[in-house]
């Protein structure tokens, strides 16, 4: 089964909206299913949007479900977009592509939470163009990779004007998982201030020890640490 969902959102000048999208693919039958969505957002001057997209897949991460959401953002002068993207378990393979272009004074905030398990792979691609003066972007990803899963965080922020760009990838790696962070900053203006932070590591032993001294087993301590991290 293969399907593509198209959604275009036009947000008029000065509006203030919250959009909630959700998708839980159930594919216990074992056959492949693909579910792609293309979301395009056009924010007019001063428009304000909060967009929440949550995917909680089922299954053990070894079926063959595929999820490829594409998000395209066009932010006009002084508009503001906040994206919360959550993907926890279940989906076997994702390639999430988010592109954004920002005009003068526009602001983009992205918070991504991701947990992969089984043999899943999850690729997150961000391409943000800060085109207008005083535009800014803050792209933050927190993720946990378990079992044999694979994650790639690929973020390119381009500063074409005096602007502020920040991206951050903070990943906990477990078992035999693999995490690749590819941060890219492209400054084409002397007043473009761009920062990237990336940290990949296993759960700190001292965190486990502390929770175990409070009576949790090692597995319970791990769950608490991960749940908090992805909260």
């Amino acid at each position, binding site marked *: 089964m293969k399907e593509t969902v198209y959604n275009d959102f036009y947000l008029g000048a000065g509006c203030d909206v919250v959009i909630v999208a959700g998708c839980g693919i159930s594919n216990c039958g074992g056959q492949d299913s693909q579910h792609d969505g293309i979301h395009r957002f056009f924010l007019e001057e001063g428009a304000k949007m909060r967009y929440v997209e949550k995917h909680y897949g089922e299954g053990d991460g070894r079926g063959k479900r595929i999820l490829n959401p594409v998000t395209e953002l066009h932010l006009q002068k002084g508009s503001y977009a906040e994206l919360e993207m959550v993907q926890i378990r279940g989906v076997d393979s994702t390639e999430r592509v988010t592109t954004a272009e920002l005009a003068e004074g526009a602001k983009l905030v992205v918070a991504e939470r991701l947990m992969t398990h089984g043999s899943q792979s999850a690729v997150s691609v961000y391409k943000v163009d800060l085109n207008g003066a005083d535009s800014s972007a803050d792209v933050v990803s927190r993720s946990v990779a378990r079992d044999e899963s694979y994650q790639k965080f690929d973020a390119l922020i381009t500063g074409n004007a005096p602007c502020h760009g920040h991206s951050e990838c903070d990943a906990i790696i477990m078992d035999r998982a693999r995490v690749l962070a590819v941060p890219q900053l492209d400054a084409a203006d002397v007043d473009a201030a761009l920062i990237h932070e990336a940290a990949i590591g296993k759960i700190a032993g001292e965190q486990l*020890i502390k929770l*175990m*001294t409070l009576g949790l087993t*090692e597995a319970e301590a791990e769950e608490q640490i991960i749940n908090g991290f992805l909260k």
Partner: protein
Amino acid sequence: MLTLNHIRYEVEENDQCIDIIRDVGFTVGDRKFVVITGPNGGGKSTLARLISGVIRPTGGQILFDGADITSLGITERARLGIGYGLQQPVRFKGIDVKDLLRIAAGRSLSTDEACAYLSRVGLCARDYVNREVNASLSGGELKRIEIATILARKPKLAVFDEPEAGIDLWSFQSLIRVFEQMREEISDGSILVISHQERILEIADEIIVVAGGRIERQGPREEVLPHLIGTASAVNSCSRLTERS
């Protein structure tokens, strides 16, 4: 309550065997307040880690309420009633103070209950209860939260590793009150504190001086304290302040 018999702890480094704890034995009796003191690097924190199960001794035996716990892990010892406040508390991204207190108590806590523990360690509770236990907390705040987790846990034996470190002098008296309250609250409970502070040594029932991985001296406070006054083991908070200025 707790007995250490001939405890040894050796580590191997570059094919060399280093003795960190060399044949240490002592008992913490029921309802006792015992303070371990001694120079930096003497082995005090190592003893706390051996007692809580973070590391295992390479020799000797640890008894808790008469049972041999030498081979038990951290979780099992915690569940038997051993609490451990770390010298350097741990930070967690995404876990807030209330979560940590709830985990410590082993049950859900109302905001009021959580706040009560924080107030006892001198934190203005409402400001802290929903804060994340992350890098945004100062060292002293973190240390107080660490102590609050032990209060919430109500262990039979509470081990505190330098609880006064990073806590300002003004709140020192309240810290001592925390220990006194704990003694009243946890019937049959004992407290083992690692400290360099004279005022904590002054409220001890017994003092153990550890240096070079050995016990240099141990006994009732009245016997041991006179030997320590003026040495590096007992730092008077005022003299420390005068030195600094």
